[in-house]
Structures are given as C-alpha cells and as structure tokens.
C-alpha cells in the first residue's frame, strides 16, 4: 500500500483518538464528534485513491446511497428512540464486516491461491463477530422499538442447544482451516454466526437491552478489527476495538 495512504490512515487514527477524547467532556463533545467525522472523511478519501479501487462509479453510488439513507434515518428518528437507533446502526456496521469477509472468501475461492491459515482464521472471526452483531443488534432494535415483545424468550434445553451450536461452529472452523476453499462449510459458519446473534439476544428482556446494545457496540468494533486482519489493513485494526471497553463501563 502506498506510503501516502498509510500516512493518511495515521492522520485519521490520530483524529479519531483526539475526537473520542473530546467526546468525553461536555464542553468539547460536539467538536470531538466533528473531529472524528473529519478523520473518517480522510480515511475514506485516502482509500478511494488506492490502486485496488477501480470501480469508481459503483462505489460512489454506494457511498451516496448509504450517506443519504444514514442522514434520513438520523434526522427522522425520535429523540426517545435513540438507543435502538444506535443499536440498528451498529448492526449495519457488523453486517458490513461480515460481507467484507464473505467477499474476500469469494475472491480467494476463485483465485486458486493457496490460503494461509491466519487468513482463514481472521475470516472466520470476522464472519462470527460481524454476524452476531448484525442479528443481535437487529433483534435488540426490534425489542426496544416494540416491534416484537420485550419479554425474554426461553425454550427447553436452551443452554445445551446453544452450546451444541457453538461446538458445531468450532468443528466447522477447524474443518475450514484444513480445507479453506470449502464454500458449503463457510456458508454454514456464516449461518451459525447469524443464528448465534439471535440466540444471544432472545433470552434477554427489553429493560436490559441498552446493556446488550453497548456490548454489541464493542462487538462491532471487534468485527471491524477482524475485517482489518482479513485485509491486513491497519486502518481497520487501529480504531475499531476501542469500543471493546465500552461494554464494560
């Protein structure tokens, strides 16, 4: 990756740190948010200058669609609906991380390259954390928005069921590491990740949802971080999991 882009990423990371720091104090919070947004702009523009990015029309279209949707959602949402809004946005970020890993898997699938083990592991992690964040956040959103009942949903043998799902995931992961071009296994792992997000949130009542959203928020940071490892892109690794600590505070 060209030096200029790397340096831009460094600038963006510094802006994120300063922005977050300022967000921590009432007097400077709005400025902090602005600074972080500028950091994001720097990172995006720098990435667009990458030689790997050729498909400008479509990418600019996607950026435009996403920006308009995001702006509409941000202005339409009621002040009282903010927690679920953050949850929803968070889930979309997790979804993006999952899609990135899937896209990279498909690229490797068609390239006949041999896939190094660490690549496979980071792809699995990215799909797992991103998938849980996506469905978990969407479900938390639905509960807080009262689209579905807020009461905890439990069923018999829930815990053994969950554990066996996790075991299936681990076995599948091990298999994928030995056979990194196995599409069926990869899709199964993706499906399980999405299912785990649902299973994680359904037994939790509506009142506890803000905590869940906070935790999933840190997950999405980790998911972006894992996607960073997939693409070996420091920009993704750096800021992402600061959020990891948010959940606990």
């Amino acid at each position: 990756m060209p030096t200029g882009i790397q340096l831009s990423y460094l600038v963006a990371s510094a802006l994120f740190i300063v922005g977050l720091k300022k967000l921590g104090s009432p007097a400077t919070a709005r400025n902090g948010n602005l600074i972080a947004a500028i950091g994001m702009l720097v990172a995006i523009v720098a990435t667009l200058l990458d030689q790997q990015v050729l498909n400008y029309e479509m990418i600019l279209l996607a950026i435009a669609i996403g920006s308009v949707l995001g702006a509409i959602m941000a202005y339409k949402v009621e002040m009282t609906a903010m927690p679920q809004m953050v949850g929803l946005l968070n889930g979309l970020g997790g979804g993006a991380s999952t899609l990135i890993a899937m896209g990279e898997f498909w690229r490797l699938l068609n390239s006949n390259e041999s896939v190094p083990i660490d690549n496979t592991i980071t792809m699995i992690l990215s799909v797992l954390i991103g998938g849980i964040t996506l469905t978990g956040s969407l479900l938390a959103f639905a509960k807080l928005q009262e689209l579905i009942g807020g009461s905890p949903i439990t069923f018999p043998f829930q815990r053994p069921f969950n554990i066996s799902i996790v075991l299936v995931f681990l076995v599948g992961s091990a298999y994928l590491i030995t056979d990194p071009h196995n599409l069926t296994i990869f899709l199964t792992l993706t499906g399980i990740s999405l299912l785990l997000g649902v299973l994680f949130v359904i037994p939790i009542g509506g009142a506890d949802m803000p905590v869940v959203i906070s935790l999933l928020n840190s997950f999405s940071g980790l998911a972006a971080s894992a996607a960073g490892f997939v693409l070996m892109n420091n920009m993704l690794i750096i800021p992402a999991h600061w959020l990891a600590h948010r959940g606990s505070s």
Partner: protein
Amino acid sequence: MAEGLIAGLVVFTLASFVGFEVINKVPPTLHTPLMSGSNAISGIAVVGALLVAGDRDWNITVILGFIAVILAMVNVVGGFLVTDRMLQMFKKKEVKA
C-alpha cells in the same frame, strides 16, 4: 504472512490500551453520545468494504462489497449525525439549567 500478522497484533494490542485510557473516566451523562460516536467510528469498516468492492469486473465479491459499502456508510453518516443531534440537545439542556 507472519510478519504482517504480528504487526497487526502489535497495533491491535497498543490500540486497546489507548482505547481504554481515552474512554476511562467519562461522566455518565456522556455515555450515550460517546457510545454513538464510537459506533460511528466502527463504521471504519467502510474502508475494507471499499477495497473489497474495488474490482473493475462484476463478480460476487464486488456485489458483496457494494452492499457492505452501503451498510457501512449508513453506520458512519447516521452515527455521526445522531451523535451531533444528541449533543445539541445536551447544550440546550445545560443552558436552561
């Protein structure tokens, strides 16, 4: 491969400490905007999405990347705007008080 991975792990670990120090000791009233702001930053996944979607030819990877760019941009733009709205309200409240 190992070299890149280790460099990544170094960045990951050091950034964890930075994150902890930055987020530490924030007044509880600012927790929601801070979470929302940091959530917007996690939309940095858009960078990865751009790289995945960058290919010239249409294939599944590009389509997945395309959708990922849209989702991540919603996260980024929505996240920052929502945070700003919350903080705006904050200010008004303070003036009243």
